[in-house]
C-alpha cells in the first residue's frame, strides 16, 4: 500500500530533471525535504521498511504545548541497520517510540512495511507490533513472574503462532540459555536477561527490530556478547534494525547513524548525509 507521501515521491522521481521554477515550487512545499542524494537513494532501492515524513511530537506541559520533536523524515531499507545517536534528552527514545508505534505522532506520516502507522489506532498498532516488530530494551523488560522460556514464548502466543514452546526452546538454545529455561528473570544475570530479551524479540521473526540502549545496563564482556548475538541474529534473519544508543562503537556497527540534537535529526552519516527538518 502506498501512501500519498509515496505517490509524491513517485511524482518527484518522474520529474527529476525539471525547471528551476518547478524546483523552487516543490522545495517550498512543506513536506518536501529530500536532498538530491536521498532522491537517488530512494529511486534506486527497493520499497522502504520504514518511511517517515515530517513527523513531529508535541506534549502538553504546565506551561502549554511543547514540541519535543521537530519535523523528521528519513527512510530505512529492508535489512538495513541504523543507529539513532544523541545525548540524553535529545529525543532518541521519543523517536523510537513513534517509529515502533508505542506512541502517536502529533503530525506527519510513518509507513512501516507499507502500512500507515500514523493513521492507526492503538489496537491496529498493537497488531502491527505483534506481526512485524521485535523489541529489546535497556532494562530488559522481562515479565518477572514468567520463566525465561515463558517470556520468550509470550510474543508467539500473543501473535497466535503454532507451537510457541518449541520455537522458544529452539531460540533459547541459539542464545545459549537452554539450561536456564525455567529460571525467573531475577535468577538470571543482566547479560542472561538481555539474551532472553533478544530471543524473545526474534521468536516471531520480526521484520524490524527496535533496540533501546540494549547494552546500557551491561558490563563490557556481556555487552560484547549481547552485541554479537544481536547483530548475528539480525544478519541471519535479515531483520531491519533500529538501534538507539549512546555508545558510538555500537552505533558504528550499524550501516547508518542518525544523529539527534534537541529534538532534531541533525546529521546522517555512512553512507547518507543529512536528513533535516524544515
Amino acid at each position, binding site marked *: 500500500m502506498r501512501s500519498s507521501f509515496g505517490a509524491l515521491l513517485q511524482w518527484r522521481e518522474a520529474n527529476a530533471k525539471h525547471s528551476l521554477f518547478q524546483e523552487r515550487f516543490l522545495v517550498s512545499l512543506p513536506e518536501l525535504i529530500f536532498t538530491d542524494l536521498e532522491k537517488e537513494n530512494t529511486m534506486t532501492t527497493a520499497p522502504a521498511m520504514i518511511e517517515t515524513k515530517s513527523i513531529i511530537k508535541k506534549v502538553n506541559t504546565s506551561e502549554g504545548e511543547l514540541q519535543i520533536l521537530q519535523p523528521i523524515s528519513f527512510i530505512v531499507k529492508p535489512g538495513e541497520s541504523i543507529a539513532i545517536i544523541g545525548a540524553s534528552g535529545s529525543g532518541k527514545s521519543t523517536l523510537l*517510540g513513534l517509529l515502533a508505534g508505542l506512541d502517536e505522532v502529533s503530525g506527519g506520516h510513518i509507513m512501516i512495511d507499507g502500512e500507515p502507522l500514523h493513521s492507526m489506532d492503538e489496537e491496529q498498532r*498493537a*497488531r502491527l507490533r505483534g506481526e512485524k516488530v521485535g523489541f529489546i*530494551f535497556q532494562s530488559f523488560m522481562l*515479565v518477572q513472574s514468567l520463566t525465561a522460556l515463558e517470556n520468550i514464548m*509470550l*510474543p508467539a*502466543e500473543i501473535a497466535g503462532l503454532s507451537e510457541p514452546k518449541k520455537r522458544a526452546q529452539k531460540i533459547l538454545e541459539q542464545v545459549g540459555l537452554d539450561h536456564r529455561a525455567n529460571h525467573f528473570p531475577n535468577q538470571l544475570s543482566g547479560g542472561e536477561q538481555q539474551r532472553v530479551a533478544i530471543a524473545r524479540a526474534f521468536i516471531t521473526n520480526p521484520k524490524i527490530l527496535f533496540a533501546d540502549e540494549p547494552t546500557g545496563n551491561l558490563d563490557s564482556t556481556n555487552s560484547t556478547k549481547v552485541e554479537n548475538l544481536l547483530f548475528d541474529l539480525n544478519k541471519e534473519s535479515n531483520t531491519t534494525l533500529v538501534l538507539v544508543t549512546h555508545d558510538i562503537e555500537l552505533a558504528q556497527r550499524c550501516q547508518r547513524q542518525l544523529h539527534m540534537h534537541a529534538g532534531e535529526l541533525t546529521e546522517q552519516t555512512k553512507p547518507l548525509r543529512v536528513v533535516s527538518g524544515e
Partner: protein
Amino acid sequence: MSTVFQLAWRLFKHEAKRGELTIILLAIILSVGSVLSLSLFSERLQGGLTDRSAEFIAADRQLRSRELVDDSWISKASEFNLNSAYQVSTRSMVFGAQELALSDLRAVDANYPLKGSIKVALQAFGVPEATTESPKQGEVWIDSRLFQLVNVELGGVIDIGDGSFKVTKVLSEIPDAGFSVFNTEPIVLMSTDDLAKTNVTGPGSRVSYKYYFTGETDDLNEYYDWLRPQLNRDVHRWTSIEDDDSAIGRSIARAEQFFLLASLLAIVLAAVSIAVAAQRYSQRHYDPVAIMKTLGAGKVMVRRIYLLQICFITVLGIVLGVTAGFILQQVVVVFLADVVEVSLDIWHWRPLAIAVFTGVICSVLFSLYPLLQLFSVPPLRVLRRDINTTLSSKTLQFATSGIAVFLLMWVYSQDLMISAILFVSGIILVVLLLGVTHLLIMLGRKLGSGKMGAWTLAWARIRRRAMGNSVQLISFSITIMLLLVVLVMRNDMVEQWRAQLPEGTPNYFISNITESQRIGLENQFEQNNVTGGDFYPVARGRFVAINDEKIRTEVTKEDKEVADEGRQGLGREANLTWGTELQMGNKIVEGEWLDSWQEGEPYPLSIESQIAERLDIKLGDKLTFNIGSEVITATVTSLREVNWQTMQPNFFFVLHPKAVENFIPTYITSFNLDESRKAEITKLMAPFASVTLFDVDARINQLREIIEQVSVAVEFILILVLIAGSLVLIAQVQASMDERLQELAILRTLGAKGWMIRFSVINEFIIIGFVAGLMAAISNEFSLYMLQTNVFQMEAGLHLEYWVIAPIIGALTVGLLGAIGCWRLLSLNTGELLRKMV
C-alpha cells in the same frame, strides 16, 4: 481464548507461588473469612440464645388469645410441620380443708411445654428439678405458697370450682410463668382434660388461651403468613422471643444489632483492604501490561488476561476464606463450649452465601478502578518508566468505592440507619483527614528542612509523598475508627448490661405488705443485716377515662359491647404507686416531676413515655382511675423514660401522695440475700406470714448467664474485627513499600546511615499512626453518638480517654507494623536495593 486462559493461568500460578498475590489473597481471605466466621458464629449463637430464650415463652412462637380459637388453626399448624401445645389460664379460688386462696390456674395439654421444662420439688420451697411429665387427669401440681395458704400437704386434695383434685407435686417453675411482682397469685397446674370438670371458665370469667408452636423458622413464618389475615388485633397476639420486651429480649436484640454492626465493619475493613491490595496489585502489573501491549497484545486480550486472573484470585480467596472462616468459628465454638450455648446445627447457608457474595462484590467492585487503571497503561511505559496510567480520576475512584461500600452495607444489613450513620461518619472523617493532610504537608515543609536527621527526613517524606500519605492516612484512620467503634460499643454495652444486675441485685421481692408489716420488716432487715430496697405503696386501679372520655377496659363477656367503644385502654388493671422521689432508672423526658406541685392545683401524675405514646396520652391530659370504690382524677404533668431492664419494681403511673392520701396502701419491696444465707429465709419471713414472697434468684441467674454468654461472644467478635483491622493495616504498609524502595536506595547511595534511614521510616509511620489515631478518636465520637442514640437506644457520652489512647496506640501499632513491613527493605545493602529497583 485458550491462549488467553493459558497466559492468565500461567501468570496466576507463578505469582501465587512466588508470593506476589499474598496481599490481595489475604485481603479476600480476610473479607470472606471474617464475614463467614462472624455471620456463622452470630447465627449459631443467636440460634443458641433464641433456643434458650424460647424457653421463656415455652415455644418458638406463641399465639395469645382472649377467645378459644378455631380448631382448624391448630390442625393447619401440623400441615406446616409445626408442633403445637396449648394452655388455658384463668383466676380461680382454690379450696383446701378449711382455707381458700385465689390462684392462677393453668390447664395444659400433654405437649406443654414445647421449649424449656416444668420444674418441680419434693417439698414446698424445695430444690427444683426439671421434669418431662405434666399433670395427669385428676391431679394438680401447686405452687409452694399455696401449700401454706390453703393448708394442704402433698397427696392431699383441693377443690377448684366443681372439681376435686389430688395434689401430687410441688410446682417450682413453669417456663412461661412470666415475672411480675404484681402477679401475686400462686400457680396451679392441671391437665386441660380436667378443665371442663371445674366449670370455672363459664360466662363472666376472664379466660386467656395460649397456643404454642415450634418448628423451622421458614415453616413458622409461612404459617404466620397464613394465619395473619384471620387474626383480630384486639383478641389475638402473635409473639416470638424477638418481641419480648423483657431485659432478656432487649439484651438479645441489642446483641444482634451489635453482631450486625461488627459484621458490617468487617465488610468495610475487608473492602478497604481489598481496595488497597488491588491498587498495589495493579501497580505491580504496570510493567507486564506495558510489555504485553508492546509485544502486540490488544486491549481486549490484556483485559481478558487480567479479568481471568482476578477471577482465579477471587475463587481461590473465597475457597480459602470459607475454609479459614469455618475453622476459626468452629475453634472458637469448641473453645467457648462451656461458656456459650450455640446452635448445634453447624452449617448455615445464609452466612456462606453472604460471605461468598461479599468476596465477589469486594473483589469486583474494589479492584475495578485499579484494573481500569491497569488496562490503560500505555505501551510507551517500556521506554518511559515514569508513565503509569492514562486513567486518573480520584473523584471517580472515591465515588465508585463510596457507592459500593454503602450499597454493600445496606444490602447486607437491610438497615438504612446503621449504614447511613457509618457511611456519613466515614465521609466526615475523609473530609477532615484531607484537611489534616494539607496541614501536615505544610508542617512537613517547615519541619522537613534544616539539618538532616531521622525526624527531619520523616517530615520531609510526609511532604513529598503527600498524595500517597493522605490515602494511607485516610485508610489508617478509618480502620482505627471502625475498631474503636466496635471496642467502645462492646465496652458500653457490656457495662450497661452488667449494671442492670450489679452485685447485690435484689433476689427477693415481697408484696402485699401492710403499713404495720412494713415497719416490722424494716426492723427485721436491720437486725439481720439484710440490705432492703425502698418500700413502694401500691394500689390496683382500673384506668377508666382520658379527659373524661371513656376508654376500653378489660374484655369480659358481659361488657363486650362497652369494650368495643371508646379509646384504647391498658387492657388490664393498672398498678399505681405514689411518691415525690423519682425512682432509680427513671428519667423525666417531658414536663415536670411531681414535686413541683402546688396546693390548689389539680393532682399531678407521671406516666411512662412508651405507654403514653401507645395510648396517645399527652401532657395536660386528665386521667381517671377507679381504686376500689374511690375515683381518682389526675393531670399528666410529666412523661418518664423507665429502664425496665433494672430488677426493680417499675410503674407506668406515679401519683402525688396527696391524690391518694385517704387510701390505705399495701407495699412492695425487694431485698438481697446472699446465696450462702438462703437457708435463713424461712426464719426471716416467719413473722410475716401474710406477705407474698418471690424468689427471683433463678431468673436473675438465667439473665446473668445470658448476659455473660453474649458478652463472651461480643468479645470474640471484637478480637476478630481487631485481627481484620490489623491485616488491613499490614496491607496498607505493604502497599507503600514499592514507593519507598527508590528513595531508600538513593539515601543509601548518598551515604545516609542505616539507623537514620530506619528511624526516619519508622518515625514517618509513627507520625501517620498518631494523626490517624487522633482523627479516628474524634470521628469515633460522632459515629458512637449516632449509633447509640439512634440504633442501640443507649445513653451516649464522650469517651475522652480514647482521645489519648487512640493516638498512642495508633502511633505504636502503625510504627511497629511499618518497622516490620520495612525491615526486609531496610536491611538490604545499597547494591541489593539498586538491583531491586531495576
